[in-house]
């Protein structure tokens, strides 16, 4: 049984004088213990809002959250906020892109970690302090005794992110949500942090939701990948399938947009045209249609559903005219053989 089941999650922001804005629009996915599930997409596609909604960390006003987030059988969205607070830190934890903003600047690292241990694991101060030291050591902070006494600003970006991970895993949460945990870090430090997260999943059976815009990070770390566009999942597959047979025109376009270290020199990039500001509402269309090279008539009159993809096992797709390997090419310029629906393409 999955540890976390997100069902039809929706987040709508309402501000006076403005049309309500659906940042997350019917997102469903499961996470098993020890599994790493990726949420990928460009900025604004709803990755962070999804994770904040799961953690119940959105501002209480100005938004409406719908759907179900069932954690080990309990619907987190309907839990009294006090119980939710208790679970946060104990059962579920989150790490953010900017570690500085999630650490208290005027409290030493040591005190911040011991506080978590005392509050959630009911440890005595001396035991908590010893445990905090071990934790810093485990996440690869050199000279943990000295670092415990230091304040966040005295640590480098990589050290801060480690300290934050130490706090997040202090209570051995069963689910960890990492929202762009390495985006602000250098690649050599990123490699350290990704290795650390991988170890946590493998050794503690922690379930991990990895949020990133970096398809390279996804390729190395995630068991299952969800590609988000305009608040909806447009493609889902295990990582090998996703990269071997991407079928959504957006996924295809993303892959064709990325300069690759191992690509032949002088190879031209084939970016998705336009930007997310060209999106149209999902209500009776495909939001991606204005940027899509595979668009067919239906794309502006009906809204595609997430259904089984023409190729692959458990591979899902939200598209009327997927990109298929035999089609004429890739991405925005890609194959435009008019295929009526996903199923008939084969």
């Amino acid at each position, binding site marked *: 049984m999955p540890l976390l089941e997100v069902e039809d999650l929706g987040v709508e922001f309402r501000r006076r004088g403005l049309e309500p804005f659906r940042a997350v629009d019917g997102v469903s996915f499961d996470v098993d213990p020890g599994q790493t599930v990726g949420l990928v997409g*460009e*900025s604004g596609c709803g990755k962070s809002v999804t994770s904040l909604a799961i953690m119940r960390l959105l501002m209480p006003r100005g938004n409406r959250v719908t759907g179900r987030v069932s954690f080990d059988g309990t619907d987190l969205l309907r839990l009294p906020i006090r119980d939710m607070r208790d679970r946060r830190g104990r059962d579920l934890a989150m790490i953010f892109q900017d570690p500085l903003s999630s650490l208290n600047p005027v409290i030493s690292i040591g005190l911040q970690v011991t506080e978590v241990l005392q509050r959630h694991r009911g440890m005595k101060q001396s035991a908590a302090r010893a445990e905090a030291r071990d934790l810093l050591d485990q996440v*690869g902070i*050199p000279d943990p005794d000295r670092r415990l006494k230091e304040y966040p600003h005295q640590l*480098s*970006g*990589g*050290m801060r992110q480690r300290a934050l991970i130490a706090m997040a895993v202090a209570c051995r949460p069963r689910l960890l949500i990492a929202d762009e945990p390495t985006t602000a870090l*250098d*690649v*050599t*430090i*990123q*490699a*350290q942090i*990704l*290795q650390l997260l991988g170890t946590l999943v493998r050794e503690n059976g922690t379930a991990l939701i990895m949020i990133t*815009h*970096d*398809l*390279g*990070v*996804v*390729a*190395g770390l995630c068991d299952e990948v969800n590609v988000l566009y305009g608040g909806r999942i447009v493609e889902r597959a295990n*990582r*090998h399938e996703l*990269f071997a047979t991407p079928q959504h025109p957006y996924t295809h*376009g*993303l*892959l*064709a*947009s*990325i*300069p*690759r*270290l*191992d*690509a032949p*020199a002088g*190879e*031209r*990039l*084939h*970016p*998705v*045209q336009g*930007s*997310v*500001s060209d999106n149209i509402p999902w209500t009776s269309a495909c939001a991606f249609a204005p940027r899509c090279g595979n668009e067919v008539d239906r794309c502006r009159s009906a809204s595609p559903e997430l259904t089984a993809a023409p190729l692959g096992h458990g591979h899902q797709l939200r598209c009327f005219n997927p990109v298929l390997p035999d089609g004429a090419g890739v991405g925005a310029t890609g194959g435009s053989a008019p295929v009526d629906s996903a199923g008939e393409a084969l």
Partner: protein
Amino acid sequence: MTQDDLFAAGEPEQPRPEPAELTERIEQLHVEGLAETDAPTEDEVAGGRASAAALSAATADAADVLLEVNDLKVHFPIKRGVVFDKTVGYVYAVDGVSLAVRRGETYGLVGESGCGKSTLGRGILRLEEPTAGQVIFDGVDVAGLAGEELRRTRRRMQMVFQDPLGSLDPRQSVESLLLEGMKAHGLTKGKIETNRELRELLSSVGLPATALRKYPHEFSGGQRQRIGIARALTVGPELIVADEPVSALDVSVQAQVINLMEDLQQERGLTYIVIAHDLAVVRHISDRVGVMYLGALVEEAPSADVYAEPLHPYTRALMSAVPVPDPVLEDTRERIILTGDLPSPANPPTGCRFHTRCPWRQETRCDTERPVLTELKPGHRVACHYATEIGSGRLKPNAEPLQLV
């Protein structure tokens, strides 16, 4: 200093160039530039020429070199004290960089945050006053220039920033942003003519003419970067130093801007120095890549070789750390995980600056003797005492991961 200072450096009234189409003028720039600049005498450049030529003989044909940097240093004083500013030390942000950039090529600079990439770029453009060393642009030592000559040379070198409009007055329209540089350099003509030039320029960066009347906040990040590039182009530069030009953009938009930069380079014969922390971007866009660590180049090579056969331990680690969007490769790749962080440039390690993190560090030489950038293969320079032994596999990485001191 900001780009405004760069413009402000010009005297207000300038001789107007012959009325000509902007595009034409840009094409003519090389010719014009050569005509305007007094050819340097032999001894003016002799010292620099010799060393740079020796360093880059194989990588850049001396006749074709647009920019030479010789042992450039930019140190920032660290000040303490309430009443008197006492200098208690220096940040060695750029500490001895030599390189040469050919006309029409793209030179990429990579390295971790704080390694001195931006400072080097700014030092080259003299937006930051170098502490020591030479910058020779088109055969002329830039340090010797003043007044009109300096202004004219500056017009030929422009900078593009990560978010070019982020720091600007939001009340300034795109039109006035674009005109700013042209006015400072006395390049504006009649109203109609100038307007036509601006429209052409906008269209060449993929923006509609209606953009002229709009304001920065009305554009997306990608469009803002197009405006930033257009703004640099208004004065017809030959060299563009682009500091993280696509780092703030989404991947699809990033690719559009990269393609645009490549197109403009083709059309206008531009020379680029592209600074970025994203190695894949730099490898893609550059002809040659320089890898920086703590204020100095540790490796320089044609961009394909930097990935295919990195020779410096730091470059090896860097390349192995970049995630590649290919699960099969990711599962099988060997990864060199470095321990610790970049040491402080205010207190750089002795000897090889990488020795505190180097998996191949040797007892002898590494912590006492600073390795010099040496050409190991044609066009491939490396600063490591043991690069050859490491490359041949004769030296193995140390088993014990090194801890940061």
